[in-house]
């Protein structure tokens, strides 16, 4: 009594391969399965048939590591709001549905294989300045600097970004603004982030450009697919910090 599905999956052997959509049937899918468990079932079958399983990134399978992610029917992480691919369950699909599955598409996220892309550009954006410089052991007592609860909460909201890259995948400009803005905002709102605030904003924005991400035209697709609902005002905060730093 499970569901029967037709999957159209992007298959690409490696970075050099051109890649193509391949159609698979999956039968007897339980509505309680997660999307990745459904792909597990397909992969088990492919392995036994001597085929390459569909490669996809995943680890925690509970929506926090940011490793998983694919574009499902044209929407990054699928249509379920505020949900990572690993938390998406099959009960949201109809029996006999045709599901298209593609990797994140953006030049700075080259495809490694099938649905796996290289997101190391994000790490380099953090390297450019997404930190507070504190050597271990040199920190003052945690209570020496009180932080207003509202600021701490707002910083936390921005800090929940899981670095999945759905924002880039959804943005028509291939912009990494939401990701970059989330980190800049997180640190800008806290007193600990102030000393490096200007250099951080400048360096991270410039790195984002250097990686080849597009600019933001405030289309808002990113925040709509973001599994953590990172809000657009982080981008305003980034712009503010950047312009101030560039004066």
């Amino acid at each position, binding site marked *: 009594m499970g569901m029967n599905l037709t999957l159209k999956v992007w298959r690409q052997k490696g970075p050099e391969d051109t890649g193509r959509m391949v159609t698979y049937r999956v039968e007897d899918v339980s509505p309680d399965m997660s999307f990745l468990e459904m792909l597990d079932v397909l992969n088990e079958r492919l*392995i036994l048939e001597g085929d390459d399983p569909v490669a996809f990134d995943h680890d*925690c399978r509970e929506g926090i*590591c940011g490793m998983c992610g694919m574009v499902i029917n044209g929407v990054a992480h699928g249509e379920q709001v505020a949900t990572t691919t690993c*938390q998406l369950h099959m009960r949201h699909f109809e029996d006999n549905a045709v599901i298209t599955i593609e990797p994140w598409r953006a030049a700075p996220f080259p495809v490694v294989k099938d649905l796996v892309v290289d997101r190391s550009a994000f790490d380099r954006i953090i*390297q450019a300045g997404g930190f507070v410089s*504190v050597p271990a052991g040199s920190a003052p007592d945690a209570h020496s600097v009180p932080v207003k609860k509202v600021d701490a909460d707002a910083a936390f909201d921005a800090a929940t970004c899981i670095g999945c890259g759905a924002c880039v995948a959804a943005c028509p400009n291939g912009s990494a603004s939401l990701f970059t803005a989330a980190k800049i905002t997180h640190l800008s709102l806290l007193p600990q982030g102030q000393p490096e605030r200007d250099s951080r904003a400048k360096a991270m924005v410039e790195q984002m450009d250097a990686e080849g991400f597009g600019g933001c035209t405030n289309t808002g697709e990113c925040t709509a697919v973001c599994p953590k609902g990172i809000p657009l005002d982080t981008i305003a905060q980034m712009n503010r910090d950047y312009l101030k730093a560039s004066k």
Partner: protein
Amino acid sequence: MTTKYTEGEPIRDTKAPEGPIEDRWEKRKFGAKLVNPANKRKLNVIVIGTGLAGGSAAATLGELGYNVKSFCYQDSPRRAHSIAAQGGINAAKNYRGDGDSTYRLFYDTVKGGDFRARESNVYRLAQVSVNIIDQAVAQGVPFAREYGGLLDTRSFGGAQVSRTFYARGQTGQQLLLGAYQALERQIAAGTVEMHTRHEMLDLIVSDGRARGVIVRDMVTGEIERHIADAVVLASGGYGNVFFLSTNAKGCNTTAIWRAHRRGAMFANPCYTQIHPTCIPVSGDYQSKLTLMSESLRNDGRVWVPVKAGDDRPVSQIPEDERDYYLERIYPAFGNLVPRDIASRAAKNVCDEGRGVGPGGLGVYLDFADAIRRLGRDAVEKKYGNLFEMYERITGEDPYTQPMRIYPAVHYTMGGLWVDYDLQSTIPGLFVIGEANFSDHGANRLGASALMQGLADGYFVLPTTIGDYLADGPYGEVDEEAVAEAEIAVREKINKLLSNNGDRTADSYHRELGKLMWDYCGMERTEESLRKALERIPELREEFWKNVKVSGEADELNQALERAGRVGDFFDLAELMCIDALHRTESCGGHFRAESQDADGEALRDDENFAYVAAWEYGEQGPVLHKEDLDYEYVKMSQRSYK
């Protein structure tokens, strides 16, 4: 049969300094040799893992000026499994003035660990805990705060003081991002060289010292050798030996198991923590289990129907036919008994046929009373995100019907044996975080794993490893040792790929996991363990003959990655069962049905088992080395939560 093990020399020296316990760490720090700053650049350190332990260690070592290489199997160091920790991190800050102190945290941890942890280590952990919070706050970790602007804390499983710092339900994430950012800063500074999507497959031991690792580039399949003056393993826990656990899918034992094969002793492998509040299994396809924060037990009431086999819907079960069994059996602690006790109680009622949900493997966690008492809004404020997560996974609304929960494997207290310096029995091999066995004894308290990982990585290891490195650089490495390790790795991969059998690695892993859960899970008996020890070698043999892995060696091949890990899980599973079988007492996360009191509570046997069981790998079966545990400061007593 491999239940045979031999007993070797006991371990006498753990390198902990003598003297009053408060001064030991200070003494060790002073006694540790310092490395000449000019030499640090010439000293290479490999760190496997970028979780709280590995990430903080690599960042700190880089900061100190060593030449560090860091490895993880994910595509970014930020995704290490530590990211998933929810509840919080303990620290003896006593910001509440509620009577907390280093000594009390030390005491609670030793007691919580059921008197199977080393006093010196635990005391140091409690001392360092306060620095962790300072460090994290300075990095910009957005801990929860009160309106006054100061840090908020809460109390957590088994503690009577409020010492758990938290960042909503995402404490692990925020702490890991702090460590990750520190690490990225060092990468930019050129002191740390990062290798993501690289899996460690063997340890290089040359002249009796750990000198490097063999890793596989998971994208190109290339087998690489990396040489260093010291190797740090921070590869996390091995709970995935049970297939289903709350751990991330990629968590594995390969790194520590390979090190064990090369001579590092494995301590207390059988100590496994089962977490009582997880979402139950819903079908055979299930790939992992999801933890629901323990904090839910503050307001939720646990119950099952009084009658076995009662499958009426909740609304039709009258109040007097519900058994709130935790409140009934443990009136003093009620729903808040420690993890191991709550887990076993759930298992017992399900074994009696009173479980609820698919397969009868679940108990209710009911918020109806809390909603009535506090109002839906208040409940939503407190637990909204958890309720949402539950609904997302099960499709059921926990506001209108009770949650179903069941225990699941969560954490492994066992790991590679280390001394006070966190050095294993192979000189130059250091082990930190969940990968070692050090601080939690037979049972870990909630919110203490994050504390230990960061204590090890930021504060302890950077000092103690200096003492070892001060005698370096260690010169040329024996080429034969490297080649031998590399060949072994290649052979294993070729074996897996050329097998052409008819079962997938996952299907073997599932079978092994079920076997371990049934026979070496929440409750163990001599009989069940013997059964497991009979079956595991058979299954392992079949696995190596019959597993099917498609694809090639020189490409991204996830089937191959999994198969390799499963192979090591088989070996580990066997050692776990041997350890569980030899320890005929019950303690902490290890419950032997034969050793319980009249009320069914765990019965320790301090006379015979107050030791750490450190296993040495031997071709003729494992060799047991005992490290006796002396309690000078905390008096051993039977735990009671009635």
